[in-house]
Structure formats: C-alpha cells, structure tokens
C-alpha cells in the first residue's frame, strides 16, 4: 500500500512536468516577461522610479501625446491639436472612442483633472515641474481641451507624453491608483502579487481598433539575473526587456532566443562638485576630460556595446553634436598634465569618487580610476548602498560621482533642470551665465532650426567646461523567445510596442 502510494506520488510529480510542457502553447497569447525590480506602487503621477514607470507607461497609461519609435512627438489620446498665434494656447481634440478600463469614456474633464492632479501641491507629484509652464487647463466641450501657458514652451508637447491621463475621480485621491491603476492604454491592470508578478490583460475597448494583439502581459519580478536568463532559455519567460550588454552577450546564440538592440538615451557620467576644490577650477575639469579614454571604457566596461558620447545621445540625430567636435574628447595624458600645471594645482589631485552601486557603473568607475591615476589624479572609490548614494547625491555631498542618467528626447527637459543655475537636479552647483542664457532662449524659441542652433552651443559649452564628464552611451538590449514578433526596442526604454507584439512562428 505504502509503495503504491509512493509510486502514485511520483507519477503525479512526473505528470506535472509532462503537462506543464504540454500546456505551454495554451498560454501562448499571454507574454511572460521577467523584470528585475519590484515597483514601488503604480500611480503614474506619484512614483517616478523606473521599476514602476516601465510597467505602466504606454501599457496601462497613455498621455495626450506620445513619443514614437523615431523619438518624435506623435498624437495619442489627443488626435490633433492647434496652437494659437502667440504660442500660449493649445487646443487638443481628443481621439474618439477612447475609454478607461472601467468602460467610462475619456472626456475633456478627465484630462483637466489629470493635469490638475499633477500640478496639485497635495498630490506632491514629482512630475509637476514638467507642467511648470501651464497657467490653466479647461474643458471646452466633452472632447476638446484648452491649455493656456504662462509663456511659450517648446518642450510642452514632449512633456505631455509623460503625463498619464487618469479618470477624474482620482484628482484628489492619493492612494487609489497605487494598487489598482486605471488608465486608457491597450492593457488593463489585472493582478499584482507583490514580489511575484504584475498581470495585465487586454483592454477590449481600446480606441486603436485591432490592438493590442496579445491577450495579456505578465511581468514576473525576478531579482536574480541568472534566474531570468535561465527562465528565458528554458522558455518559461518570453521576454527580458531592457537588459545590459553583459546579460545579452550571454544569451546571444542560445537556441530559440532573439536579441534586439538599440543605442540608448541613458548616459554614464562623472559628475563634479564645482562648489569646492579641486573641481571648482574649470581647467581641472577639462584636464579630467583629457585624461579619460572613452573608447577604452566602452571596450573594458561595456564589452564594446556602446559609443563615447557628449551631452546628448547620438540616438537623437536631430540634436546631438558629433563628439569629434569636442577637443577634450581626444584622449591625451600630456594635455591633461599640462592643464593641471596651468591650473597651478599640485599633483596628485586627490578626490573621492562616489559610485552608484550598479555593476556596470562599478566597472566603469574602476576603469576611470585607473585612467585618472595615470594622469595626475589620485582617485579613491566609494561605493555605498543605494539609499546612501541618493542622499549624498541629492545633498551635493561628494567631490565627484559616477552614475547613469536616463536622458530625455527633449534637450530642455534635462539640460534646464540639470545645468541651469539653481536647477532642481543641479547637484553640481554649476552656474554659468552664458549657458543660462542659452537654456532660457531654448525654452521660448519654437522653430526647430533656432532651437538646434541654441542647443548646439549649449552642448559645446557643457562638453569640456561643464560640471560633467560625459562618458558613454550604451547599447540597450531586449531578449525574447524567437516566437515573439512585432516588438520594437525603444531607446527610452518604453515598452509601448508591446501593443503590436504577438506570437508568430
């Protein structure tokens, strides 16, 4: 009897294995993705950490505008808009047939409520500064919204892409969306098992008819990189979105695995505190640039998957200045030492480099350390825990730091807050009247050609004399099972092309 029972148990266990294998295709229309980080809430206006935005942006939520595959502003919930003569009034026409996931139609009142929600002090949204130019938003009729600006704002339409439209009843509700997000996007929220998964299901009433193609997407939260890789190889997961070169190289060549890649907007950098020695001296900052060998960094720390880059990503073909135009990007130890001599500082220049605790940044920091020590600096690395890093970074409590910034498709979006005197993320305490003037003009100039000229100048000011030594732009990868079709990797890490993703042969 006992033996029979053991046999039965074994058969059951083996049977499970068999059926799991057999059942796999039955789940085929739900894409199982594996991501590393657990989101800290799903309210698109409150939590702006990447672990959250990658899951909800473009899937559950949409803005009036969107950023398309070519990194240009495109219509989304607003099918069209007109701009007044003085560039201060925008009138948006909402797309017809759009509904929230509860079935309610999307009306102008919802758009107004969403914009007000972001701007409200009570909600304390970190996105509020993106709408700093907005004077007021009002509903003209059910499908027309009029937004009045305090002054003309070139980046306004880009900024709107990052402002999710939520149902009006959440205007003053701080908590409702954290657990149960509700938007207008192609996928609706289904279930969140903390530390387990977030399941999204197809939004049947999606305004863009015929989309999405998948029945659902399940984001499995898998903290361990080796586990994610094995899960993809074994077929348990269909997609590992936005992975780094080290992981991608290990997956390349595995059977039934496809790898997509693109140059990303995020850049690695050495940020310098210009409010105290040694980096208060522009010559020392320039010397540091000469001392760096960016090609070597790409080879040694990014496995060759990346390019040296200046203030803007080469992916932004309309904006980025070729790095060949920046004299200090040509590696030269002699030039670095000559500049240090000119600056009248005694070698070696000792400083501590605060390092973001992430593997790729650690690798880069070590290469940078070796290069700088070779050219008159003496660098000590300090790799704290993430909370400590963020605190020191925010309080400008560093000589210099090594980190990665996400970048933006709109130059104003990060130049202004990062480099303008008093900017909200100007942790370097950098202040340059010439640059401030350029950045102010860049906001109000509306013609593309004018703006390009302005930001060309800004890039040249920043590249060699600014508070940041721009290092590299990495390749970004997404690994999928080769049956996953129609997904396109985006340089800004958005997963919005899940809308057109499907399973094929």
């Amino acid at each position, binding site marked *: 009897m006992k033996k029979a029972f053991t046999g039965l148990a074994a058969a*059951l*266990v083996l*049977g*499970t*294995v068999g*059926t*799991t*294998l057999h059942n*796999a295709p039955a789940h085929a229309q739900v894409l199982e993705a594996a991501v590393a980080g*657990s989101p*800290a*809430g799903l309210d698109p206006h*409150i*939590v*702006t*950490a*990447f672990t959250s935005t990658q899951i909800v942006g473009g899937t559950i939520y949409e803005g009036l505008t969107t950023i398309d595959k070519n990194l240009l502003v495109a219509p989304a919930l607003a099918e069209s808009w007109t701009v007044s003569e003085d560039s201060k009034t925008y009138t948006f026409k909402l797309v017809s047939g759009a509904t929230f996931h509860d079935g309610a139609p999307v009306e102008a009142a919802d758009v107004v409520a969403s914009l007000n929600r972001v701007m409200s*002090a009570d909600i*304390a*949204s*970190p996105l*509020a*500064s*993106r709408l700093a130019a907005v004077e007021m938003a009002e509903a003209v009729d059910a499908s027309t919204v009029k937004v009045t600006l305090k002054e003309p704002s070139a980046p306004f339409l880009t900024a709107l892409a990052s402002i999710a439209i939520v149902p009006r009843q959440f205007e003053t509700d701080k*908590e409702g969306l*954290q*657990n149960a997000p509700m938007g207008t996007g192609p996928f609706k929220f289904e279930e969140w098992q*903390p*530390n*387990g*998964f977030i399941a999204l299901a197809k939004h049947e009433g999606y305004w863009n008819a015929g989309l999405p193609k998948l029945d659902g997407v399940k984001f*499995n*939260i*898998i*903290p*361990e990189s*080796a*586990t994610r890789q*094995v*899960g993809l*190889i*074994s*077929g*348990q997961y269909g997609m590992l979105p936005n992975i780094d070169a080290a992981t991608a190289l290990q997956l390349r060549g595995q059977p039934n695995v496809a790898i997509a890649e693109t140059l990303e907007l995020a850049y690695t950098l050495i940020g310098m505190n210009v409010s105290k020695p040694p980096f208060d001296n522009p010559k020392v900052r320039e010397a540091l640039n000469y001392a760096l060998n960016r090609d070597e960094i790409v080879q040694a720390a990014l496995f060759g998957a990346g390019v040296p880059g200046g203030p803007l990503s080469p992916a932004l073909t309309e904006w980025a200045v070729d790095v060949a135009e920046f004299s200090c990007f040509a590696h030269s130890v002699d030039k670095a030492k000559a500049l240090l001599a000119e600056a009248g500082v005694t070698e070696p220049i000792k400083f501590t480099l605060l390092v*973001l605790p992430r593997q790729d940044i650690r690798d880069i920091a070590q290469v940078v350390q070796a290069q700088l020590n070779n050219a008159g600096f003496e660098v000590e690395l300090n790799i*704290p*825990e*993430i*909370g*400590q*890093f*963020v*605190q020191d*970074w*925010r309080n400008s409590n560093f000589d210099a730091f090594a*980190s990665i*910034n*996400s970048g933006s498709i709109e130059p104003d979006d990060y130049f202004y807050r990062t480099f303008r005197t008093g900017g*909200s*993320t100007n942790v370097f305490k950098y202040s340059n009247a010439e640059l401030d003037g350029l950045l102010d003009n860049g906001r109000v100039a509306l013609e593309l050609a004018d703006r390009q000229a302005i930001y060309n100048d800004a890039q040249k000011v920043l590249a060699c004399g600014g508070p940041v030594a721009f290092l590299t732009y990495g390749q970004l990868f997404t690994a999928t099972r080769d049956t996953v079709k129609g997904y396109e990797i985006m340089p800004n890490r958005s997963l919005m092309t899940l809308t057109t993703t499907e399973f094929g042969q």
Partner: protein
Amino acid sequence: MRLLRTRLIELVVVLFGISIITFLMIRLIPGDAVAIMLGANTEVTPERVAELRASLGLDKPILVQYVDWLAGAMTGDLGVSIWTRRPVIEEIGAHVWPTVQLTVFALVLGAGLALPLGVLMARLRGQGWDVVLQIGSVAGLTIPSFWLGIMMILALTVLAPGVQMLGYVPFSEDPLGNLARLLLPSIALALPILANLARLTRSAMLDALQQDYIRTARAKGVSERSILFKHALRNALIPFVTSVGIMAGYLLGGAIVIEQVFAIPGLGRLILGAIAERNYPLVQATILVVTVAFVLINFVVDLLYAIIDPRVRH
C-alpha cells in the same frame, strides 16, 4: 502551565526589545523612503520632498513616530505599507505561505533524512561508507545554497527544457504546479540542514552507544536493533530536537537567499524589498512576525523535550 506563563512573559519582553531595535536600525540607514520613491533622476524641489515626507509622517521626531507606532501595535494595527498603502498585515499574509511551505518542506526533508543517515553513519563507523558519507556531509555543509540553487536550475534547463520551475503558484490554485516549483528550492535549502543534522546524529549516537546502560542492555541480551533504536536513539534525540528548533529559525534566513534565486514571493523577498525601499512599517512588522515564529518554535521544542525525556516533566 507555569512554563506557558513564563514563555508568554518572555515573548512580550523579546518583542518589545526587537521592536525598539528594528525601529532605530532601519532609520539609522541613510536615505529615506522619499528619496527611493523619487529615484535619483527626477526633477524635484526640496518643497516637494518635504510635502511628501510630511504626508508619510516621516517629518516627526523618531520618538513620536515610535510611540505612534507602539500605540497602533497594541491595538493590533501595525500600520500600512508606505508604498502600496495596504495594511502591512495583508502584505505579510500574502507572503507568508511560500516561506512556511518552503521551511516545512526543507525541514521535513532535511530532518527526516538526517535521522536514518546519522544512525547509519554511527553504525558504519570507521568503514569505507562512513568516510564517503562524512565527505558528503562536509560538502553539504560548505556548498552555499544559492550556488547550489543556480546549478540545479541550470542543470534542469539542460535536462528538462520547458519545465516551469521558477516562481510560485499557490497550492489552492494548482497543487501539482505548487509542489513541482517548490521541489528544487526545498532540496537546495534542505541540504545543509541534512548534512548538519546527520553529523550531529552520528556523534550523539556514538556518544550514547558508549554509555554504561548500552553495555548493560547488551549484557542482558537485548537485540542489536532494539539497542540502536530504543536505547541509543532516544537519548540521541535530545540534541537533535534542539538543533531542529534552532534550524527552523535559520531556515527563515536561508529562505531569503533561496527565494531570491528561485523567484519565490516569500517573507525573505518581502523583508529584503522593504529594507531596500525603506518601507519602515513593513520591515518592522515582518521582523516582529518572524520573531514571534522563532520564539514559538523554541517553545514547541521545549514541549518536545518533555515528551522525549520523562525527567524534564518533573
């Protein structure tokens, strides 16, 4: 009854002490929830940060925060998660079962196999097999379970591609899927326990077998089997049970690593995530729950002594 009363008093004292320590420790780590929430790259003004801090109650002095928390805890309200705004009790409830299952499976597997294996090793002492088992047990003790876990995942990927072995499904939803997914992590978690307990059983058995009462039993003609299992093993059980009790506590710690490797949403992941996110109420409550479990397990072990060793009852 008196045992129960002293234990309860002990539990309250321990819980009080732990609550103060965790409350201070988590707040001593630099960087708070707001900084993590915003990430390092969003445009925020100090005023916004201050507003957010105030809305989470983080702007009050630590002592006031502690008293507020304690007052809530007394009435059974352990607070809400900073992030999801759900009661922390609910969050813990959602994470407790995978860990309990994993712990129990590993304990049953480890302790269940350790006993016969230890007896066997004591019986085979000095022979070739004893040496092999000894080497095996040292290996079991020293191989880190996270490494073993990853190796097992890799091996199974090659041997049985397509098997769903990562993550967790509740038993009520898919009993077989649940067991299949817990098999590998349980083995990885059980191995060090098995090795440890087997060695312990072996030495306790060897010790017992040299006692006078064994010689007496042999002299009066008791069968070898009866000597081994009735006389020697019963005495060897006391250190064994003590160790099992302690290990149940350590298993909760080992589960943190294994849950990470096998992507199981258990208490270990919950605590780790909560610490990383500075989710103070959640860390606080989870550690309290684990402490209670630890104390209760030790209480059960004390009761077991009384069953095994009649002398304790008096």
